[in-house]
């Protein structure tokens, strides 16, 4: 048996699963003290199901704490940035184009050093070992212990970054280091930014993991602990202590994976309807479709792979205009219980409309009994149209697919969505995110720029695939269960024929609990 927990900004959801069967689920407010929030969730589902703490084999946690830390500029440690790439890139130092407040919170120390690789694998410049020694000495003499290392074309050749990391470890054993090639793909500035954010979160990651472990210990749960990451796969607790930034989008990802688990639909659109927005994502072979765009995290440009999510202002708290023909984006949010009509408030929200149409039983229905039926119908159909249009935008290749509704606001939708082949509201749709956390698998990926003129396609593919598998096994996957789930091949524009950017992603089962998911 295993427990999935989703620690969100407002709610902590938990689900207990045995094999494919959901035994118990719970939803509670997130407490300021994360440990007691999690222990309360444990108590609730163990009591509800009658399962003993000793029978829990695995706990998976999805958390937005690291995203919130970046957005709110707290818990961030000062980080030194070392970039290997001179003589190129002189004009653009690390921390270029960062918002001032976060640059001040993290930055202040950066180094640019000769070295790195070219697109074809040739040496950009010999690594300047003296300059590296000087940089390490300078950092060593300062209080800064977090270091981010980036190098030109590091996804193609990680040796320069690894060499510098080893040197730092030897000279400063207490340093916490992030190498850019371990965290992002091509795009030096964005990958470097991602590595800096990750390094700045490393001390906080140790505290967060310690608090999760403490919560397990307090309830006598002695089993492996995993944290869910952006792509819907898991990382071990030790791994998240090195890669906290890989959790940035785990919230929406877990909803998508939970929707897959609840319905068994491998290819579908998922609409997660919350209080303020509806987040629409796409399931492809049971995993979230990823976005190819630059992702802004707290104002910093990064190239993390995140699920492709379209958010529109339709949620339970969205405010309905007087004529019913326009909805949101303003929402009463978590003041629903004070401001919505059915709770005696003044605002007409989508929740009020749902109660007026008998789709929902909540609050005092008499408060919406006198609403003009034309207004109610206009609001209902406006909402359906907004959802239909957004779903239509996300459909892969123009195909019509089933739509799975999850989240607290799923009950708002009362009629079949015309953009869908069918509309599914699964049982327990409210805790899809916690269920999603509980079924995550282990993954790995690798990316390289290759020329099919020099290396045959099959050989290049095999090499990148082997690299992806190696990283999955390192993260805790059972090698024999690994499957390729995504291959992305894109020609490099304005270059000789055959130059390609090749990325392979593999996913497999947890080695410690083979077959559990």
């Amino acid at each position: 048996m295993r427990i999935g927990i989703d620690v969100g900004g407002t709610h902590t959801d938990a689900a207990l699963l045995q094999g494919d069967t959901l035994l118990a689920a719970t939803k509670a407010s997130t407490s300021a003290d994360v440990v007691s929030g999690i222990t309360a969730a444990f108590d609730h589902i163990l009591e509800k199901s009658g399962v003993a703490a000793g029978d829990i084999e695995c706990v998976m946690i999805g958390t937005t704490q690291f995203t919130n830390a970046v957005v709110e500029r707290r818990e961030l440690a000062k980080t030194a940035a070392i970039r290997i790439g001179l003589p190129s890139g002189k004009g653009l130092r690390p921390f270029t184009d960062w918002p001032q407040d976060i640059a001040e919170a993290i930055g202040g120390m950066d180094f640019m050093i000769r070295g790195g690789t070219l697109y074809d694998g040739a040496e950009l410049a010999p690594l300047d070992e003296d300059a590296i020694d000087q940089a390490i000495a300078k950092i060593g003499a300062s209080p800064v212990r977090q270091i981010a290392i980036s190098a030109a074309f590091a996804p193609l050749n990680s040796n320069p970054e690894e060499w510098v990391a080893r040197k730092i470890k030897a000279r400063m054993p207490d340093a916490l280091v992030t190498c850019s090639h371990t965290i992002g793909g091509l795009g030096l500035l964005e990958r470097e930014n991602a590595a800096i954010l990750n390094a700045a979160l490393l001390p906080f990651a140790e505290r967060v993991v310690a608090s999760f472990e403490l919560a397990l210990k307090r309830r006598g749960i002695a089993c492996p602990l995993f944290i869910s990451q952006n792509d819907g796969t898991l990382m071990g607790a030790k791994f998240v202590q090195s890669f906290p930034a890989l959790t940035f989008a785990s919230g929406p990802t877990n909803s998508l994976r939970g929707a897959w688990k609840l319905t068994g639909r491998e290819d579908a659109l998922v609409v997660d309807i919350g209080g303020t927005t509806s987040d629409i994502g796409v399931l492809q072979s049971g995993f979230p479709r990823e976005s190819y765009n630059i992702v802004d995290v707290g104002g910093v440009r990064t190239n993390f792979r995140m699920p492709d999510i379209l958010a529109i202002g339709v949620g339970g708290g969205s405010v309905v205009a007087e004529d019913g023909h326009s909805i949101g984006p303003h929402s009463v949010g978590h003041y629903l219980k004070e401001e919505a009509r059915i709770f005696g408030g003044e605002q007409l929200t989508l929740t009020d409309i749902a109660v007026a149409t008998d789709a929902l039983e909540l609050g005092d229905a008499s408060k919406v009994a006198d609403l003009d039926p034309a207004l109610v119908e206009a609001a209902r159909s406006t909402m359906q149209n907004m959802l239909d249009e957004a779903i239509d935008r996300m459909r892969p290749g123009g195909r019509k697919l089933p739509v799975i509704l999850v989240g607290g606001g799923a009950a708002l939708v009362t009629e079949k969505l015309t953009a869908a082949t069918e509309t599914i509201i699964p049982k327990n749709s409210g805790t899809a995110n916690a269920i999603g956390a509980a079924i995550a698998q282990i993954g790995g990926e690798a990316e390289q720029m290759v020329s099919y003129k020099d290396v045959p396609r099959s050989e290049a593919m095999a090499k990148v695939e082997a690299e992806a598998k190696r990283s999955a096994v390192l993260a805790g996957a059972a090698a024999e269960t690994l499957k390729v789930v995504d291959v992305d091949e894109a020609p490099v524009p304005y270059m000789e024929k055959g130059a390609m950017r090749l990325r392979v992603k593999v996913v497999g089962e947890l080695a410690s609990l083979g077959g559990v998911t």
Partner: protein
Amino acid sequence: MRITADDLDALALGSVFLATGGGGDPYIPKLITARALAEYGPAPIIAPADLPDDAFVCALGSVGAPTVSLELLPSIDEASGTLDAFEAHLGRKIDAVAAFEIGGGNSLIPLLAAAARGIPMIDGDGMARALPEAQMMTYAMQGISPTPSVAYDYQGNIAHFDCSDPLEYESVIRQHAVDNGGMITTAEHPMSGAECKAAIIPGTLSFALKLGRLLGDNRGPVNVLVEPLERVFENTIYGACRLVYSGKVGAKTSRVVGGYDVGEAVIESLESDQEPLTITIKNEYLLAQVGAQIIASVPDLIVIVDAETSMPINAERLRYGQRVAVFVIGAPQVYKTASALEVVGPRYFGFEHDYRPFQ
């Protein structure tokens, strides 16, 4: 006229629009240009008509893959270093610089060189849009030799070229880029002020800025943009601008045409009875057709914008499901001669039809 850091967003936006899907992401070129303008002050701009006939001018820009410069970050030195090497090679001071093309980084590189050197950038370019090869520039078409030229790589290595045939020059310089890190900066097409006036497409830089400001002011649903956009192209070197199609991006496929790997994007109409529009891509958007009927083809400009934000979309950012509007703008007159069409017309790109101007 001078260009300041405040103009860069608009200039980049207008340039991406005129780059017709190609030219790469302007983010990094914009960052370094902003730094150059902060360090050296605004870049002076000169109209071609104001150039002295005996001025000494060259075209300056980068050659290679925009994807490479995501890792091999460009810097200010490359633009000014290229000019230094060019002057040393020719033994003459450059009085003003001109752009290869309007698009992604190449409309900004001469600007940062101009700012760093305190010499003017000429308001104009050799393409009035983005196109992939050197012989497609009006400088070459007007008979100006591409060489002597110099190329400057990421290490500051300098190479000299001597090759008067534009087609051959294109293949030599492209290979040099491939062999030297994938991205180089070149100064080429040395010309006098008088020659430049005859060859350059005038006013395209200030037009890109004006267009970018218009786009910036009209962010939002594309129906608001249509009328002002059509108006801004009136009485310019371009032909008429028309909205030709609205829909959403459906399937994207690829096939081989005339030896090139060519991509295709299908835009599906939201009206069910309308046939989809197919856009053929080779770096830029080159051909738009509904069924067998050709709506527009290179050198006319085919531009795709996001229907909700009105922002132009680069080919690599075009994505399934996006709601888009497709505009066509008539090519500048200089591209409509028989000799120009030989190097920028549909047949050069491997299509099997002749150019018919967009009406």
